[in-house]
């Protein structure tokens, strides 16, 4: 039988309506304004202050928060629930020779033990699927989970993971991203190279720009790793129903992605996975991918009981994602007035052990690395490399704060050297309406200069133009 197309012809009544009513009338707002307004008032105006600015906003859940009645994941209990703990490798780079779980399994109160070898598909990740749920053959950073235990109490689970014996063959870890960048350094995730993301932005001719410059400034800026530290630790609870469907309650902010990752790692169709996001006690980008979810799901399957796993604070620091540390080489050529004529940038992102959201971070850092300034001649290049450290991922701004630190610091360096007011050098170079971004996009609603001037006036910057 032929399928009917979704875009059907207009039904007879609709057609009749269209014919009988003037089209203009159909376009009129459902509620006519009380008095006729000039049309231009309805056109949204860029840079017009919205009424929301400066208003105090309250939250619909604010009262429950204050009453202590907001239910976070750790605030509910399912009958018969077991508690899981994950054993961390504690070594940065090693091959796993053996994992002995016998002693842990024999402990009274321990119901099940899980190792990486039992995971149907032991890899996941938002772009590259390079992260194991629990390391089975190879440890890539000290926070890697190597085994998990489900027990009747958290205390027993914590004691049981201490009884698991893992034999490692130690490997030399690569900890310096610049070391990792070198082609001769063996790939952590061989056969894949250590550089797993690369981006170049080219504009104009930097050789010409530097040749025309009166001064050239060069400096390397570095930022450190930052943990999100959500006040609520990562957690999940899994329970299976008799039809072979798993329900996972989770602190994840991105449950749809989490659902597909869970389905992949468990080797079951997505339709068998129900993900319920509980109220999130702080995310900041750190709760964007699965952590404990497949572990609790598999432990629950093994035991036939609901299983919960709550990260300890140390788990949070060593095994959840962090903000990428960046090594940023900036070379900027300016005229004697302080106009930027050329800029060359190299960013090296320390990606840690796994890709996670590195590709997004790489792209954003690179695009924003030139700063909100008109630069005719630009060359920006960014690399993200593997190291044997806690993996880096999404965190507020995806790389934007790191490069902002670098380009603004260099603006200050230039201003100081040329004895120009730091405000002035920014006003001289800043984007205006119609400026082109480094990737060639025409920018609208640009108020960098206006914002700078207003801010400087308000906090009484003595160099503020009046």
């Amino acid at each position, binding site marked *: 039988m032929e399928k009917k197309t979704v875009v059907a012809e207009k039904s007879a009544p609709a057609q009749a309506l269209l014919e009988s009513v003037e089209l203009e009338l159909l376009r009129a707002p459902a509620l006519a304004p009380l008095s006729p307004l000039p049309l231009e008032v309805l056109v949204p105006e860029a840079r017009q202050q919205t009424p929301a600015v400066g208003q*105090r*906003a*309250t*939250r619909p*859940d*604010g*009262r*429950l*928060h*204050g*009453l*202590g*009645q*907001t*239910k*976070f994941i*750790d*605030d*509910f*209990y399912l009958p018969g629930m077991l508690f899981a703990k994950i054993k961390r490798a504690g070594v940065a780079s090693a091959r796993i020779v053996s994992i002995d779980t016998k002693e842990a399994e024999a402990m009274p109160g321990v119901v099940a033990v899980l190792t990486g070898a039992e995971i149907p598909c032991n890899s996941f990740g938002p772009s590259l699927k390079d992260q194991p749920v629990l390391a089975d053959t190879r440890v890539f950073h000290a926070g890697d989970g190597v085994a998990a235990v489900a027990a009747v*109490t958290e*205390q027993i689970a914590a004691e049981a993971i201490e009884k698991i014996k893992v034999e490692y063959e130690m490997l030399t870890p690569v900890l310096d991203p610049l070391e990792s960048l070198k082609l001769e350094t063996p790939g952590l995730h061989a056969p894949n190279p250590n550089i797993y993301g690369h981006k170049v932005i080219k504009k104009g001719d930097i050789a010409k720009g530097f040749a025309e410059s009166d001064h050239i400034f060069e400096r390397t800026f570095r930022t450190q790793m930052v943990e*999100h*530290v*959500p*006040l*609520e*630790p990562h957690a999940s609870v899994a329970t299976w129903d008799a039809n072979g469907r798993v329900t996972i309650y989770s602190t994840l902010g991105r449950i749809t992605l989490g659902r597909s990752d869970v389905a992949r790692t468990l080797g079951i169709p997505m339709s068998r996975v129900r993900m319920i996001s509980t*109220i*999130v*006690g*702080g*995310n*900041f980008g750190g709760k964007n991918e699965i952590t404990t979810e497949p572990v609790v799901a598999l432990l629950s399957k093994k035991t036939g009981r609901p299983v919960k796993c*709550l990260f*300890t*604070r140390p788990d949070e620091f060593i095994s959840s994602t962090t903000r990428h540390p960046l090594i940023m080489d900036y070379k900027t050529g300016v005229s004697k007035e302080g106009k930027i004529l050329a800029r060359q940038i190299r960013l090296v992102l320390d990606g840690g052990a796994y890709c996670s959201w590195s590709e997004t971070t790489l792209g954003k850092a690179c695009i924003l690395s030139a700063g909100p300034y008109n630069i005719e001649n630009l060359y920006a290049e960014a690399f993200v490399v593997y190291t044997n450290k806690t993996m880096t991922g999404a965190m507020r701004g995806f790389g934007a704060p790191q490069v902002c630190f670098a380009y603004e610091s260099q603006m200050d360096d230039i201003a100081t050297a040329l004895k120009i007011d730091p405000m002035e050098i920014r006003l001289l170079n800043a984007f205006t309406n119609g400026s082109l971004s480094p990737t060639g996009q025409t920018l609208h609603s640009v108020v960098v200069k206006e914002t700078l001037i207003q801010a400087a006036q308000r906090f009484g910057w003595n160099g503020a133009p009046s």
Partner: protein
Amino acid sequence: MAKVTITVNGEARTVSVPPETTLLKLLREHLNLTGAKLGCDVGDCGACTVIVNGKSVNSCLMLASQVDGFDVLTIEGLATTDQLHPLQTAFEEKGSLQCGFCGPGVIMSAKALLDEEPDPSVERIRDALAGNLCRCTGYSKMIEAVQAVANSVNSHPSVKSA
């Protein structure tokens, strides 16, 4: 098992708990008072703050058996069925909380402060909240809320007993 008798939010309760049970676990898991939160379990974050005999404490650092015979006030004990505590009203109106996870702890620290010192300076408020970490808000609206309550307590002494 240790037998613990405490007064929680004005009600006497007796519970048998394993000896390693903290006050936080006693409240959350045995008395179903989940308002106090577990953020770190080592006394760093203040999410577990409750008031024991008038003093704010990190309940993750106290063993249940240490509070035997004591008077414990948790966030659940502040509001009545028809009235919020002034701190709860102020926190709501000023939008002092975002994700809310730190909220019960912060409010209990503020309550302990106001009970002791009805008209604290901003420095004293900051000091009293120093043990309560919040990753969302930046604290300023919490401080405003505590100040607002301090001012209203002073202008209407009757609120004091709330």
